[in-house]
């Protein structure tokens, strides 16, 4: 099996963007291409995987062809990958698999979503498309409600507090303030977070990520090509993924995401590392409780201790593990289908020491954790500075 590395990564600025879907994709791809140190031709891309939920319904069919054409890669085998908010985490997984298998030397993993050009009522439709539709949704739940139920059980079973949740938001906003591509580049105080209006008890406005327009692109290459394209490839040492029951209430427990545990187990094993080795992680914090579940299910901290661990500052840049130095979904923004590729782009910068004021020191082992829905799908990748064994 060929070793695989990320050789380039870029993203559009995330936020409310008046530009078209195609223009956002172009913005991300141009930056991605520019980060390939020794340059690469668009024609060398052998496969393209584009993650998108199709929010708004603008181009549900054949989106990948439209975007391949946009970046001058018409002709490349392309397809859309849909796994809700984990769409481009899985697009990245598929691109890695294509290169690992030898099917191609260079693959594009990308994601794009434009969420802010439809009315509030249609946003409500689309925000619910990835939950369990017949029962969960018709009980009156969208994701804030589902994650609120998880948060409430976590509070009952482990004593997690609203202050612990607020600590996640405060940390991620502080990180986002250092990220010029983030949707929210400002810090918040715990008081602000706690005083915000309730969205779904116990989750307030600052416990929830926003709706975001954005795109992200990543190029992965086989070892030989990677070494020709750059002196600083970022190695994909482990790739794990899993699925779980779509409706949260049908799972045995509401306080863990089994898909995260399963995906992480595979990724760690492939990489030959454990959670204690991870220096920096981009985890799926669509809600503050989701980051607490993630740091537990990924093994950074024992189950139930994610809240206090975060509140003590252990996951800040400079802490035990820098969690979401980009600002995470919370502050960087969450353009559903673009989020997973955006996480890889952040870790590409971190491993190469190019993350500027939000750089985690000595970042050699990085982990990306991308979740679809309330844990129905999950992709975990371990990226390393050193060539994997």
């Amino acid at each position, binding site marked *: 099996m060929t070793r695989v590395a990320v050789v380039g990564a870029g993203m559009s600025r995330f936020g409310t963007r008046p530009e078209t879907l195609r223009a956002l994709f172009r913005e991300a791809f141009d930056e991605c291409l520019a980060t390939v140190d020794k340059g690469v031709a668009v024609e060398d891309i052998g496969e393209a995987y584009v993650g998108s939920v199709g929010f708004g319904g603008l181009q549900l069919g054949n989106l990948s062809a439209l975007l391949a054409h946009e970046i001058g890669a018409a002709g490349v085998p392309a397809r859309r990958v849909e796994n809700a908010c984990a769409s481009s985490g899985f697009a990245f997984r598929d691109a890695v698999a294509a290169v690992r298998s030898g099917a191609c030397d260079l693959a594009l993993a990308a994601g794009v979503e434009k969420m802010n050009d439809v009315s509030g009522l249609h946003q409500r439709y689309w925000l619910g498309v990835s939950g369990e539709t017949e029962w969960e949704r018709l009980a009156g739940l969208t994701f804030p409600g589902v994650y609120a139920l998880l948060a409430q059980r976590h509070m*009952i079973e482990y004593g997690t507090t609203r202050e612990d949740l607020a600590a996640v938001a405060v940390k991620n906003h502080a990180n986002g303030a250092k990220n010029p591509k983030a949707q929210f580049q400002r810090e918040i105080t715990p008081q602000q977070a706690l005083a915000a209006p309730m*969205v779904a008890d116990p989750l307030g406005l600052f416990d929830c990520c926003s709706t975001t327009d954005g795109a992200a692109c990543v190029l992965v290459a086989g070892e030989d090509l990677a070494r020709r394209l750059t002196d600083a490839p970022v190695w994909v040492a482990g790739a794990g993924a899993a699925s779980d029951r779509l409706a949260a209430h049908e799972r045995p427990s*509401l306080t863990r995401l089994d898909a995260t545990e399963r995906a992480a187990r595979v990724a760690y094993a492939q990489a030959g590392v454990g959670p204690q080795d991870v220096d920096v992680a981009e985890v799926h914090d669509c809600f503050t409780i989701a980051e607490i579940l993630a740091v537990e299910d990924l093994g950074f901290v024992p189950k139930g201790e994610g809240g206090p661990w975060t509140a003590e500052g252990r996951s800040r840049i400079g802490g035990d593990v820098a969690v979401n130095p980009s600002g995470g979904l919370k502050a960087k923004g969450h353009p559903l289908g673009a989020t997973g590729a955006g996480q890889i782009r952040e870790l590409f910068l971190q491993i190469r020491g190019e993350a500027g004021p939000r750089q985690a020191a000595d970042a050699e082992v990085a982990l990306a954790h991308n979740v679809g829905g309330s844990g129905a799908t999950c992709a975990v990748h371990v990226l390393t500075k050193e060539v994997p064994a």
Partner: protein
Amino acid sequence: MIRGGKAAHGGGVPPSGLGVVSVGTAFPRLRLTSDELKAAWGAAPKDIDERCIPAFDEDAFTLAVEASRRALSVRGLAPASVVTIVRTFGGPRLDALRFQDALGAAEAGVVALEPCHGAGVLAAAATLAGPVLWVASSVPDGSPGSAEEARQGAGAVALVLGPGGAPLPATVGVAPWRRLTGDLGAAQPFADVVHALREAKASVAGLAVEESLAGGRRVSYVRTLQERRVLAAADPLPSEPMGAFVPWGTYEASIPARWRLEGARCAACGRGWLPAPTRCPDCGGQTRPHAFAPRGTVHAVTVIGRGAAPSEFAEQQRAVGDYAVAVVELEHGARVVGQVTDVEPRTLKVGDEVEPVLRRLYEQQGAVRYGQKWRPRGA
């Protein structure tokens, strides 16, 4: 409409000894006082103190179902053994088959749904084998400020007729609790019959009307207009929107599970599931149909605030505010998720006991979609 002093059923002795064997009533929890009404419009009827107001998720159908379920369960009658005769005014016309679906009486039959005269009902009933369910239900339809609005209240009364039951009284007066319910329209003569049976100390199950009237909550006049949908939503749902949307056929297939808690149990591991899976998701075992007992426990609960409601419930939230959604644990480890109604959302706690109630969910493709919600037990 037949009023006080005359018999609701048209008088006369029932043929074949048919009589009332049980009674069920259902009244909405929300109440509008005459003082509130007077403050809004300057006047209120003197013979009515309060009116029952249907909540946003209640209508003549849900009230008729609730009253009927009570009338049957208080006598331990199996719905499948009952022939139904429904009579209703106000609100949407009741769909006969839907009503049978809701009761689980699909194997019985519906004789009539049109407004029908009591003597005709009794004559028809006498020709039928088994008990007959006769139900009337009404919700206010008066416009704001009208004399109708000032008198009308919502409620349903179901009578089960069978051999050996108490004879229908020859003459009846107005039930005194009309002061507390408002005029029940089509259901008022039925309510008056219930009153007459009580006065006669008849041996009929379910005459304790106080139980279904208890626990009322007084609300402001404006709130009643919101609950009654008189103050309409600014942007109703598109008929067949893009994005996630449950088509009618898929919804219809879920009715046994939604309305009657008909799910399945795994023959191998015993775990219950609602709705029924094709195989047990836990162990892969074969499943058998299982109707869940109508009770559950709150396992987790949240209150959905602005912005967190799916578009189907955006209208409800705008009209009557935040609502509670709970994961409810049923028998045999089954868990379902649903709204909890008839309660102040923030007072619900994990561990609270709840019971199912059929309510309106939302309206799309020209039809109301009803489904099971939950409410605190004994509410």
